[in-house]
């Protein structure tokens, strides 16, 4: 049973009536199961934050449906969304900007309770203490304001606040990107701890495959508003099928993949294209090391492979070679794609 389900979601933006339309999110199907952590990864501008805002119903999708716990909430108004919002909380990128600087920490922490008319056992004050303690901030003075804390502390406070209403889903949009690398690891660990302790489902969005790789059960790779690959985290990290995923993986500095002896470094050329003027055919073809004529005209569909992975590449194999069974040569990098390429060539002759 999926908790959050997005189907055929699109969001088009237009700066004004004459400007070209930007398809920031272009036909996304995505499910987050109960207690599952799904990571969305992609470069800046690929539409992942827009997708997060649609999932949170902060902006309306141009097309597609948003369902929460089986219930279609796409067109629910403020009042109808209220009970859903209690079950679905958000953590954003910049913790200082996302907290009201004129409020004290105790006021900030009391907002979720007043928003949903909750009266926690033992009072708001005690509950706040317990929540802060849970995120490792049991010692702080709650009479202070956000400016008096560090970015890492503020992100912990934001997470504690999101947990106050005991949500079933947390949508975290770049929760570590504004923080120092040493603090990023702490926040990632905090998310892991929360998942372990509470079994809350998470949709984590980041450009950083390291973060996504550590947190997620399942990883979704986005490129220019579309999903190019989706797989269980272990499978995706061990054997990425899409050339874009391979390139992202090769750019991730600390993942185990990097240390594998057969690792082939692959650097993406150029910037992602302008989403207002997406290339025809496969959107990735101008930057793809495998691009061939077919890619320039024929957009690959997001195929579901027999083992449940999804990939949108003409040259990805139809089945994943079972992880750990293949030879070192094909475990990583282009190795996984190469057999398919050979098949393609034979067919072309």
């Amino acid at each position, binding site marked *: 049973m999926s908790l959050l389900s997005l189907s055929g979601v699109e969001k088009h933006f237009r700066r004004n009536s004459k400007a070209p339309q930007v398809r920031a999110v272009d036909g996304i199907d995505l499910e987050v199961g109960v207690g599952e952590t799904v990571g969305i990864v992609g470069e800046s501008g690929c539409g992942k934050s827009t997708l997060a805002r649609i999932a949170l119903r902060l902006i309306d999708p141009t097309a597609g449906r948003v369902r929460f716990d089986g219930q279609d909430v796409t067109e629910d108004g403020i009042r109808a969304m*209220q009970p859903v919002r209690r079950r679905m909380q958000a953590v954003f990128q910049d913790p200082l900007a996302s907290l*009201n600087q004129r409020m004290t920490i105790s006021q900030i922490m009391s*907002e*979720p309770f007043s*928003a949903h008319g909750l009266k926690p056992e033992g009072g708001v004050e005690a509950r706040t203490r317990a929540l802060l303690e849970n995120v490792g901030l049991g010692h702080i003075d709650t009479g202070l304001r956000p400016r008096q804390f560090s970015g890492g502390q503020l992100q912990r406070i934001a997470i504690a606040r999101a947990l106050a209403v005991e949500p079933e889903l947390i949508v975290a949009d770049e929760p570590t990107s504004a923080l120092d690398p040493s603090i990023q690891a702490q926040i990632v660990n905090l998310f892991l701890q929360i998942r372990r302790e509470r079994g809350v489902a998470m949709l984590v969005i980041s450009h950083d495959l390291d973060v996504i790789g550590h947190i997620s059960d399942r990883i979704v790779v986005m490129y220019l508003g579309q999903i190019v690959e989706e797989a269980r985290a272990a499978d995706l990290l061990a054997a990425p099928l899409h050339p874009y995923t391979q390139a992202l993986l090769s750019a991730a500095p600390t993942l185990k993949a990097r240390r594998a002896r057969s690792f082939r470094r692959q650097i993406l050329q150029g910037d992602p294209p302008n989403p207002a003027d997406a290339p025809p055919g496969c959107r990735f073809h101008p930057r793809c090391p495998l691009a061939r004529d077919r890619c320039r005209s024929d957009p690959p569909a997001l195929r579901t492979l027999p083992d449940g992975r999804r990939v949108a590449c003409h040259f990805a194999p139809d089945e994943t070679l079972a992880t750990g069974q293949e030879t070192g040569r094909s475990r990583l990098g282009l190795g996984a794609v190469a057999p398919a390429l050979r098949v393609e060539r034979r067919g072309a002759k």
Partner: protein
Amino acid sequence: MSAPAATFRAARRIDWLAMAALVVVALLAVFALMPGVVAPYDPIALDVVNRLKPPSPAHPFGTDEAGRDIFSRVIYGTRYSMGVALAIVAFAAVFGTLYGVVSGMAPRWLDNLMMRIVDMVFGFPALVLALAISAAIGRGLDSVTLALSLMWWPGFARLVRGEVLRLKTEPHVETARALGLGPVTIMWRHIVPFVMSAVNVRATTDIGYALVAVTALSFLGLGATSPTPEWGLLIRDSRPYFGSAWWYLVFPGGIVMLTATACSLLGDALDARKGA
């Protein structure tokens, strides 16, 4: 190391111009609240022997055609001129802020409608409205207050609406929505407090402009009536004697200019502090 130190020095440096403006405004407040303590003479008592006397230790700003002490009249006038200017700006700030917040939060069609109304009021000539109101309820400071209040609020409405539209997409407001807070709570707790600094700056500056507008209407004969010692009226009454009694025009005119400048400088100082 040097950059924070420089910032620190900049923050500690006293803005002497703003301090001077503050002193002027503080003095005006004293004048307005207790003119009897400062003013040496009765502002309306006639003294025909001392008509149109130049400035002297006894009459620092000289006397007018009826022998009244201009210094005392300027001091008593503070209450009228500044009082009316304050009333206008207070009404405009409160009404304009409410209007702007509602417009900024409202659905697009209502926002558009409300802003077209603002455009209409903006486009309406203040002088014509003032004439019409004086004709309807009679000449006096009441009609000046009414006319200028009705004309003044759209500036605040536009300013506040713009700020609200900007704030609506701020992360902390988006977070508040995601948290499940209602629109009214978001408005009062997460938007209005952040609008107020801009409103305060605008109001401070506008008191000076409102003062100039009030004195202008009085000067044109639409405002205060004799013998009220209103500043604009003093300037109006001085016209026949400009060639022979310069002090009659220069001191009331000077105080209007000084006050308007002080308000403008205070507004600038507030604006500079807003970001810090």
